[in-house]
């Protein structure tokens, strides 16, 4: 037995096998070039000098003794703060395929130590629930085939756009047309919207790449994609550029960047696509935005009008919030007025059992341009782990309830509902989005999918990476450290954005054509979908198929 003093045993002492990700290192292939240790965002691996004893027993000379050999090897840190996140950058840079993380098969014991210094775990990313989602399991089963010929996705014309903005009832529209009343502004947009990710949460290169890609989609490909800024303002040059029309400006409870936006209004060349008022977020309902100090660089501090290097937690509610009427009605009206009633203004809330009451309030607010509902599978740049894992409401049934509620009032065309939260989390972005539209959404917001598809975000549902909050994004997507974000080429991101939207556009047609739909988006076409889960089918009022 070794004496206790010779091994360091503290409550936090863990063996490498206790970690969620274990570095597999093939010493025989390693050239000790040190690239892996240099690139590791967590400092989870280090080169170490080690000594090896080689017992010497020479039987015939009856001598005993030891030989010692020193060598340089690679070790995984066993400090939970330096826990490997499985990003795999080490294997990406290794010239000899000598190293890489593998998921730990044992118990992940770091979960018991991620609250050190009394601070619960905060992280970025997602809820970490792997496997097919409910949306993945929905099939499009109403095929026009013999009753009527299916359409040809490659040859027929398809309408693959949706409307963002308050739409009047036909009666009101005619009445106002005749009498010269106000017709609320609307935008005809692509129904897959790049969801709100702030300038601050995202690196400047990522943001620029997205914007370039969005502009290309609109101006060259003719796909009217729009993106939302998130709560962090918008770079001043963008506010004064003709690209502003592709941007939804978000205002949230921290009001970050709005000083800059308001100042820019007189100099704007065009109106923004819309204004999104964030009241809630699916990943962390009831919690405000959070930009941790690591990411508040000089540039971000300048944009947001705050000092450098301080945490920026937004309050959970808007300061003006007194009641739903106060908050929603007045704020929407105020923002609509700020943009002379020419820009749609809509709120974003987290999915919840109370979403319907917000919606019903919006129905009575003539300035409300829609409602965005963000489900529990939504992503975030930074949140408390417990909020992300355990708080929220799945998106599908929330959207369905809201749609059916509107339909019962004949108002489903008047207030478009947009859905967010986990769309494409397993890669099936067009299928997930179209399923939600058939449940009643007018469009969907995608965030994590875009980061993964356009910039190669490494995060996944097995808690890989998910360190967006601390600014060490190994791909440079969510970092404000130039050394990291220089890794990301905005042109390449833009190219991928174009790839992604071209492909979604084609997949949408491939979904719509067999259903015999081409003239308008199949919003609420619930007869076209089915699911092999009786309870879900009943809850969503769609077909149970088996």
């Amino acid at each position, binding site marked *: 037995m070794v004496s206790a003093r010779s091994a360091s045993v503290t409550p936090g002492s863990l063996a490498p096998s206790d970690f969620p990700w274990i570095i597999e290192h093939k010493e025989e292939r390693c050239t000790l070039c040190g690239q892996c240790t240099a690139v590791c965002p967590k400092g989870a691996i280090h080169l170490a000098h080690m000594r090896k004893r080689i017992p010497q027993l020479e039987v015939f000379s009856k001598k005993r003794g030891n030989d010692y050999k020193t060598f340089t090897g690679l070790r995984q840190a066993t400090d939970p703060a330096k826990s490997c996140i499985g990003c795999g950058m080490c294997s990406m840079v290794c010239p000899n395929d000598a190293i890489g993380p593998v998921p730990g098969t044992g118990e992940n014991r770091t979960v018991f130590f991620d609250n050190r210094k009394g601070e619960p775990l905060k992280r970025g990313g997602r809820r970490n629930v792997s496997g097919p989602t409910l949306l993945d399991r929905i099939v499009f089963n*109403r095929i*026009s085939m013999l*009753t*009527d*010929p299916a*359409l040809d996705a490659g040859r*027929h*014309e398809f*309408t693959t756009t949706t*409307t963002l903005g308050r*739409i*009047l*009832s*036909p*009666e009101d*529209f*005619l009445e106002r*047309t*005749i009498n010269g009343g106000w*017709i609320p502004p*609307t935008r*005809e947009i692509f129904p897959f919207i790049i969801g709100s990710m702030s300038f601050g949460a995202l690196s400047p290169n990522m943001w620029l790449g997205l914007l370039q890609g969005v502009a290309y989609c609109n101006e060259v490909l003719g796909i009217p994609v729009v993106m939302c800024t998130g709560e962090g303002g918008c770079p001043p040059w963008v506010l004064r550029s003709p690209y502003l029309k592709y941007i939804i400006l978000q205002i949230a409870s921290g009001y970050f960047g709005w000083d800059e936006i308001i100042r820019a209004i007189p100099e704007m060349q065009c109106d923004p696509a819309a204004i999104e008022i964030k009241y809630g977020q699916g990943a962390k309902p009831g919690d405000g935005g959070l930009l941790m100090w690591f990411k508040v660089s000089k540039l971000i501090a300048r944009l947001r009008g705050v000092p450098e290097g301080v945490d920026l937690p937004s309050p959970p509610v808007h300061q003006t919030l007194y009641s739903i009427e106060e908050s929603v009605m007045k704020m929407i009206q105020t923002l609509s007025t700020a943009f002379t009633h020419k820009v749609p203004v809509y709120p974003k809330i987290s999915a919840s059992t109370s979403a319907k009451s917000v919606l019903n309030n919006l129905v009575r607010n003539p300035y409300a341009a829609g409602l965005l509902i963000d489900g529990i599978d939504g992503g975030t740049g930074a949140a408390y782990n417990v909020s992300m894992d355990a708080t929220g409401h799945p998106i599908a049934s929330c959207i369905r309830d809201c749609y059916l509620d*509107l*339909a*019962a*009032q*004949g*108002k*489903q*065309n008047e207030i478009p509902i947009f859905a967010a939260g986990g769309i494409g989390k397993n890669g099936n972005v067009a299928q997930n989005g179209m399923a939600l539209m058939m449940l009643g959404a007018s469009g969907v917001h995608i965030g994590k999918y875009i980061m993964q598809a356009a910039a190669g975000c490494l995060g996944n549902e097995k808690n890989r990476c998910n360190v967006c909050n601390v600014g060490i994004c190994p791909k440079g997507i969510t970092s404000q450290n130039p050394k990291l974000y220089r890794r990301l080429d905005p042109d390449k991101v833009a190219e991928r954005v174009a790839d992604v939207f071209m492909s979604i556009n084609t997949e949408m047609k491939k979904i719509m054509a067999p*259903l*015999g*739909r*081409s*003239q*308008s988006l*199949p*919003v*609420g*076409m*619930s*007869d*076209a979908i089915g699911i092999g889960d009786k309870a879900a089918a009943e809850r969503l009022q769609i077909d149970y198929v088996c």
Partner: protein
Amino acid sequence: MCRLALKTANEPFSPYEVLSAMEAMKEGYDGSGLGLLLRGIEFEDFKYNPRFPILSGIAHTEKAWQRVKDYMEHRDYELKYDHRFAMKPELIEAEDRFRYFLRAYRMPPKFRDMSDEEREDELLHARLALRKLATEEDNITVFSLYPDVVMIKEVGWPLQIGDALCLHDGQVKSRVCMAQGRQNTNYGINLYACHPFFIQGISTMTNGENTAFIPIKDWLVGKNIPGYIGYQSDSEVFTHILHYTLKKLKLPLQAYKHIMTPLSKAELAHHPQKEFLTGLREVCKRLIIDGPNAVIGTLPDETCLLVMDQKKLRPATVGGREGAWAIASEICGVDAMIPDRDPSFDFQPMREHTVIIPPDRKELEIWSQHDPLPLPQAA
């Protein structure tokens, strides 16, 4: 696929003529049903006043028949004429058909001085109430209650049904007759699923499937407008969209096409009323159909119409001469109805067209969506 035929003529003619056209197009349907609408009615044995509403339907049992009669009496309708078909019941497939009725009434006295709108509302409500009288044992099917309109629907082959009701003997004639063969079998056999569909004098029948049915139906039902019920067929929404366009929005007939199959953004950019039509497209977005469809209809003033869906995958031809016009799914159908016409003037509308046969039946009006909408006030 089903087959449609419509004939409109200055001189009343027998519905059997239209059934002959259906027979000519026999290859296109499966004999699962016939729907007939007659307008501009002439009865052989009664001088009919076209202001009298006619109740058309089927009482499936004696009890049901009694219930219909009692209800109308109770609602203060005065019976003026009760048409009895010379029947050959053995030709009817179904067994629970006690009585096919066509009964002309004088409206209750309190409606005498009321506006047409109020009278029409009353007729609609009375028809809906009659529909509700049906019970499982004593079924009642009511097709229409409206001045100068007769409707007949039955399961079976069109000509056979015509023979069963002896429609060839000139008991009933009309200036407009539309017929459809085959029910919408996508959604099960049901007399109410049989075209043409009818609401307040407006009637349409459709060829083809409407894949946008559920969202359109959900929207129409949500409007809570009396009479927007049924939907046993995906084609019933075409009738209600036309009703909504004309009666609720009070837009001209031409707007029907702009609501069901609006022009695309690129096409609208060149339209003289692009702003209005873009707005109309948006506010009526939930009424955009997704064919292939050919929609044929008639209005209370005996106007007849034909419109296509945007993809134009369903055939329909219109042909005729001054005083008599026919619309049919196939040219052989038009031939059967109006053989003495110049077929070189036959017209097959394209996706942007609405063919309108005005009540004077002098010439066809072929209206294109790219033409200005006759809408002086709004535009």
